[in-house]
């Protein structure tokens, strides 16, 4: 371990429930608790929320990428029958303040533009009307006079912009929002000592999650109490009042956020604070409850959830024997017009930037660039999907330059099973793993050796068939320092270090276990996993667990489903709650059984005397007696009525970043591992890629529900296939977003998915989380792009095609083939 990491001491494990065989409920593919209501159309999504007297909002959006608003005339719109009000950014600013930002110093953003728009789709006026049809009629009548400004579309050119092309001239002289450099360990010395430096320029283009449900809000303003009641499909409902109360000019006590079932997020609905502020402000101005549901066009152009858009100049220092010494890169990231989460997506990537490999040092310069596009937000991977791909591209490049087999080179550099916990140069640790076993299983499932023979045979026939292998990390369970650790050290901003998860649990007199969650359901399975874990720990029947959701005023700060953290974190809260309930049940039960608490145990929903049959009291009996028959128990506080507890679980293992950022501390330590192997055939004349075979093996520690985890892997892999082959936001030179619709932004359908996908699991438990659970919500998208890119490059090896940018849509791939063919002809 390099000396710069000496100060980063790994805290002791707080694990209480050891991973073990023979569990009853953990590890079962039970049917999901959430499903019956969803399957019957009664899920309760945001657009299903109806409140009395509710009006609908429609937006007037900017057609320009960059323009000054000279004037807005709302008079015609106001005359439309059924319109309640028409409001501009200036009107909104009378009741709300600018949006919160994690960037430090922040890039100011208003929920509705004032004076200037900075991307196509930015809202400049809103209509509140009896229904959405009328609201859109009126929105079409709002007249805006524009003074068009130069649009910044290209990431490098935007850095050079001056004058009117600068997006935020009052705050920044240029479009560079942040430029920070880091060296984790002896980067310079390692590069100087290296035999070779592999260099690549790599480009990851913009796309986004595009959940099938868009974002939406229903906001009510109570003029008497001076507060808001807000339904929204944010993932973060119990946390967000604290963050947006300032913008709404109310205290969290005057702001009640009510969760709804969310129709998919993949990160895209983590905050959605802009439209919450916008809709709330409209409700206050209009004096009626307002519903605003983004339409698909608005979700594409204005939802603050665009994914990473990066240009890397990357170097890998290697020795002739193939061992990796160091890596460094300069990365430019096109964040769009604002910077809501700062460079948190790069902080995130620091969790596993060196991949599963032994690399002694790592250096980075990160430059956040502002352009005239909608700003970035999270998308499955939160930036780590990109560095996974960069790492794997570099390894493939090294294999090629060293004349080595890419798989062998990976194996040579992989961290060994006895090296865990393993600290990488940035300071994060990998808690546990067995990369070799994952690789071995993938190799077997995929039958790599046979595939390699098939590839040789196909090549001999002139076909472009290839295989690709990716061995990647899947960090899970974040600590929040990733959001600010890369910020300028003098102004790091709000240096948050807690992101807990909590539940409250109560055994009611009927014996049911009532559980309240503080995090919403976004397609993950919070009710199912909580049910399984509590059933396991308390020996109750899953059918006796009843799940509810707190609102923001009745629950504790939950963080919710993001960063593949919910299952592992809520397991901690469930264990805490179980320990407390167990203790209580035993105390009351023992009294009823006339035994000492040490002599009883939990057994099948009963408190039972150890070693004795038939000496038991059911939880129902105990709860009933403890709730209704106080006088049956001794007169002490410990026998007060009720069987309930609130349990909060903090991050199990994190440390502070080094004050000088020699390392970033431990912040994302529960680390899974994945291996994807894929075979493809490329039609060189059309650039079409066909997936012939696919195997994915994931190690996410102890699995709570294999089927729900399998679904996450499948879904993430589908996202990764889209990212690689078909999904890209395409802008023209004026900053017009040319394909903001489902017809042209091509997400995979059932036809595009491999037909013979093989899924495997290795279970290396975490030594730090309860039962050894790790997160697993992002892995597919963290591995698929790398494996597919390698396979495509392999298929086109004989033609000399190199893939340095994603996506490779058929037109793009055909262009690469055409250029390579032309270069080959020229070379002859």
């Amino acid at each position: 371990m390099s000396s710069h990491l000496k100060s980063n001491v790994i805290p002791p494990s707080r694990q209480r429930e050891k991973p073990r065989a023979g569990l009853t409920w953990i590890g079962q593919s039970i049917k999901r608790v959430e499903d019956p209501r969803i399957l019957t159309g009664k899920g309760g999504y945001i657009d299903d929320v109806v409140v009395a007297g509710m009006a609908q909002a429609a937006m007037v959006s900017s057609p320009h990428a960059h323009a000054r608003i000279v004037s807005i005339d709302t008079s015609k719109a106001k005359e439309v029958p059924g319109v309640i009000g028409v409001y501009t950014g200036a009107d909104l600013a009378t009741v709300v303040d600018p949006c919160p930002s994690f960037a430090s110093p922040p890039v100011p953003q208003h929920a509705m533009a004032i004076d200037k728009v900075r991307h196509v789709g930015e809202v400049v006026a809103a209509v509140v009307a009896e229904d959405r049809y009328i609201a859109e009629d009126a929105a079409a009548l709002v007249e805006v006079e524009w003074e068009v400004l130069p649009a910044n579309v290209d990431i490098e050119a935007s850095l050079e912009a001056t004058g009117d092309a600068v997006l935020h001239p009052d705050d920044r002289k240029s479009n560079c929002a942040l430029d920070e450099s880091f060296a984790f360990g002896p980067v310079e010395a390692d590069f100087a000592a290296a035999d070779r430096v592999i260099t690549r320029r790599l480009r990851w283009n913009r796309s986004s999650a595009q959940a099938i449900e868009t974002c939406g809000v229903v906001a009510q303003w109570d003029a008497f109490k001076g507060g808001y009641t807000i339904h929204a499909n944010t993932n973060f409902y119990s946390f967000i009042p604290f963050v947006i109360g300032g913008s709404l000019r109310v205290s969290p006590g005057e702001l009640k956020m009510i969760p709804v079932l969310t129709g998919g997020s993949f990160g895209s609905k983590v905050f959605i604070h802009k439209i919450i502020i916008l809709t709330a402000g409209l409700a206050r101005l209009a004096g009626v409850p307002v519903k605003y549901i983004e339409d698909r066009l608005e979700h594409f152009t204005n939802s603050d959830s665009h994914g990473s858009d990066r240009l890397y100049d990357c170097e890998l220092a290697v020795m002739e024997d193939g061992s990796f010494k160091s890596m460094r890169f300069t990365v430019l990231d096109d964040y769009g017009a604002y910077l809501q989460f700062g460079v948190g997506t790069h902080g995130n990537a620091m969790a596993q930037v060196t991949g599963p490999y032994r690399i002694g040092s790592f250096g980075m310069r990160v430059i956040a660039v502002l352009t005239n596009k909608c700003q970035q937000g999270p998308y499955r991977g939160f930036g780590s999907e990109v560095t996974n791909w960069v790492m794997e591209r570099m390894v493939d490049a090294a294999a090629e330059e060293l004349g080595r087999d890419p798989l062998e080179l990976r194996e040579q550099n992989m961290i060994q099973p006895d090296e865990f916990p393993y600290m990488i140069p940035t300071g994060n640790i990998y808690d546990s793993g067995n990369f070799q076993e994952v690789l071995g299983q993938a190799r077997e499932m995929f039958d790599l050796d046979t595939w390699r023979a098939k590839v040789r045979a196909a090549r001999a026939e002139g076909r472009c068939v290839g295989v690709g292998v990716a061995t990647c990390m899947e960090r899970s369970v974040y600590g929040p320092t990733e959001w600010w650790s890369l910020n300028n050290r003098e102004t790091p901003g709000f240096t948050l270090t807690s992101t807990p998860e909590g539940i409250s649990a109560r055994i009611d007199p009927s014996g049911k276990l009532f559980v309240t969650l503080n995090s919403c359901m976004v397609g993950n399975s919070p009710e199912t996993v909580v049910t399984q874990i509590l059933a396991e720990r308390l020996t109750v029947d899953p059918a006796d667990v009843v799940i509810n959701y707190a609102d923001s005023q009745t629950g504790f700060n939950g963080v919710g489903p993001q960063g593949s953290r919910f299952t592992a974190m809520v397991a901690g809260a469930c264990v805490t709650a179980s320990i407390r309930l167990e203790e209580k049940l035993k105390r009351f039960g023992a009294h009823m059984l006339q035994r000492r608490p040490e002599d009883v145990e939990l057994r099948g929903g009963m408190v039972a005397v150890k070693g004795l049959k038939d000496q038991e009291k059911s939880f129902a009996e105990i709860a009933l007696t403890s709730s209704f028959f106080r006088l049956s128990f001794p007169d002490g506080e410990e026998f007060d009525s009720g069987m309930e507890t609130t349990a909060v679980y903090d991050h199990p293992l994190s440390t502070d970043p080094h004050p000088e950022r020699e390392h970033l501390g431990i912040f994302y330590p529960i680390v899974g591992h994945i291996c994807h192997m894929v075979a493809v055939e490329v039609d060189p004349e059309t650039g079409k890629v066909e997936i012939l075979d696919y195997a994915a093996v994931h190690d996410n520690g102890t699995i709570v529900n294999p089927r729900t985890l399998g679904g996450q892997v499948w879904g993430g892999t589908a996202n990764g296939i889209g990212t690689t082959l078909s999904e890209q936001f395409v802008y023209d030179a004026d900053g017009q977003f040319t394909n903001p619709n489902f017809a042209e932004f091509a997400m995979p359908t059932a036809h595009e998915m491999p037909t013979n996908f093989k899924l495997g699991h290795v279970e290396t438990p975490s030594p730090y989380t309860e039962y050894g659970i790790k997160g697993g919500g992002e892995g597919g998208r963290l591995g698929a792009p790398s494996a597919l890119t390698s396979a495509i490059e392999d298929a086109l090896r004989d033609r000399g095609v190199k893939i340095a940018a994603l996506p490779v849509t058929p037109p793009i791939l055909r262009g690469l083939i055409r250029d390579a063919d032309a270069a080959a002809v020229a070379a002859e």
Partner: protein
Amino acid sequence: MDKVAIELTVNGRARQALVAPRVLLSDFIRQQLALPGTHVGCEHGVCGSCNVLVNGVAVRSCLMFAVQLDGAELTTVEGFGGADTLHPIQEAFWEEHGLQCGFCTPGMLAAASELLAQTPDPTEAEIREAIAGNLCRCTGYQYIIEAIRSAARKLREARVETTEPV
């Protein structure tokens, strides 16, 4: 524009309504009929989450006007089965984990039910083709395909049971 009176059958029940001609069937179902199970994901005909059955045929409800339903028979997800009376296709989706966020599910159920009515024992390719017009961002489709295969089995078995002499 004047509202038009229509009569239709909704999930087996006769209903009457007054609708403005421009009201999309999807909005009519969700708002006027207060049946929120039909979801709206794109309003340009691509995602399929708004699929419903009109006279037994799967259609995009965002690409029809409610006035066109005069005299028609409409089946939405609410007509498939309730919590205690799940339809075999719903059962299969539950057992096979054919949903995550569930937003695409009602449309998938409509597509699946049309397929299985016409093709009781579909091949995997036929299942893929039947749901290719329904985008799901969560599942990667695999468990949906498995659910439809299992639903086909359930429905075939149910048919055998009811036709066999007792």
